[in-house]
């Protein structure tokens, strides 16, 4: 449904007619709603009038009103295709998730190695970092993507460079490799990890163009999927 902003009342008669068409539908739905629901909507509308809001905040209020109205507008909405939109990822989201998985796997492997070298247990590290032992355990098993701040604390606790724990750790955050390359003034990379899965075989990873691998922050070895290594 198109958003009609309260601060921009339709300027043309045609636009006003379109807004009224939506208004009638919402008005009828609101009439079917119980008293609590109507009170909640009234509260939101009053909040719009009483506070100075930016566009994002205003949009969130409209989204909240829409959420409240869903049960009363179900007939006019497209049927939901799934109960939880986070259960199924699009192809692009899967690709991004794969990249993140690889980052987390590299981090977990490097963290485990550093802990072993330094003789630090999960409990000791958790104490130094200020998280529970379960958080460290889940990072090691790739079930918890650490925050940037957590990675910094862990690096400090283990007395190692942050870049030696997190692949492609940048100044402004955890950029993806193409962005990292752009930041360094190189040509943006056009391949994805999934393409690497196909092209990399043991012994052939040296074929990767050097310019695509940021020196010192990323080991070529990290790019080789675990399955390939296992097969080797």
């Amino acid at each position, binding site marked *: 449904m198109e958003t009609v902003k309260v601060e921009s009342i339709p300027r043309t008669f045609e636009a006003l007619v379109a807004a009224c068409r939506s208004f009638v539908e919402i008005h009828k739905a609101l009439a079917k709603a119980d008293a609590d*629901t109507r009170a909640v909507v009234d509260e939101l509308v009053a909040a719009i009038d009483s506070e100075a809001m930016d566009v994002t905040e205003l949009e969130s209020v409209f989204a909240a009103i829409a959420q409240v109205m869903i049960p009363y507008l179900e007939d006019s909405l497209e049927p939901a295709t799934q109960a939880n939109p*986070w259960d199924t990822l699009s192809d692009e989201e899967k690709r991004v*998730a794969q990249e993140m998985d690889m980052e987390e796997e590299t981090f977990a492997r490097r963290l485990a190695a550093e802990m072993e070298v330094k003789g630090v247990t999960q409990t000791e590290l958790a104490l130094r970092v200020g998280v529970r032992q379960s958080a460290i355990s889940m990072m090691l098993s790739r079930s918890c993507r650490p925050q940037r701040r957590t990675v910094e604390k862990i690096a400090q606790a283990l007395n190692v460079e942050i870049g030696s724990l997190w692949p492609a750790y940048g100044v402004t955050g955890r950029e993806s490799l193409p962005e990292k390359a752009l930041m360094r003034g190189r040509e943006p990379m056009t391949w994805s990890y999934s393409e690497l899965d196909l092209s990399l075989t043991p012994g052939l990873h040296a074929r990767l163009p050097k310019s695509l691998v940021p020196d010192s922050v990323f080991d070529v070895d990290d790019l080789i999927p675990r399955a390939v290594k296992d097969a080797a």
Partner: protein
Amino acid sequence: MIEDNSSDSGGVLRGTYHVCPSEAALHAARKLFPRKRDLMEIRRHALKLSHWPDTPPSVNSGQALDLDWEWVKGLPKNVTDVGELRIDDQIGGFNNLRIIFYKAAPPFGWPKNMMWILDVFQKKRQDFSVADLARFKAVRHGVITGYYAVR
């Protein structure tokens, strides 16, 4: 029947809560993070709620893995199950990000207790505004009437 997202795609451990975004939260997150990577990053942080450390009601704040959380104050007295998860990272150019969640029982036929995501936004003030609180209350109400109420 819904699938279990609590382990995410790369994880191996499963949490005890099912994390589900409300339509309003999903809308807000998509508006805030047009880049898929940022959206996926915030999703992964939100999914940490599946490993919610059950605490007694007297505890007002704590940690969900490496994220700090706190119950939201200022809501009506009967609403004691809405909390804020603090993201310390800068994502999509935004800092001071908050994930507002509602801890609830499972709807009929769903397998696990729920963590409903009510909102994702950048907190710009020290305290929540009247509009913020009205929004959290409204989306929680929408989730209850939409997923729990028998009509």
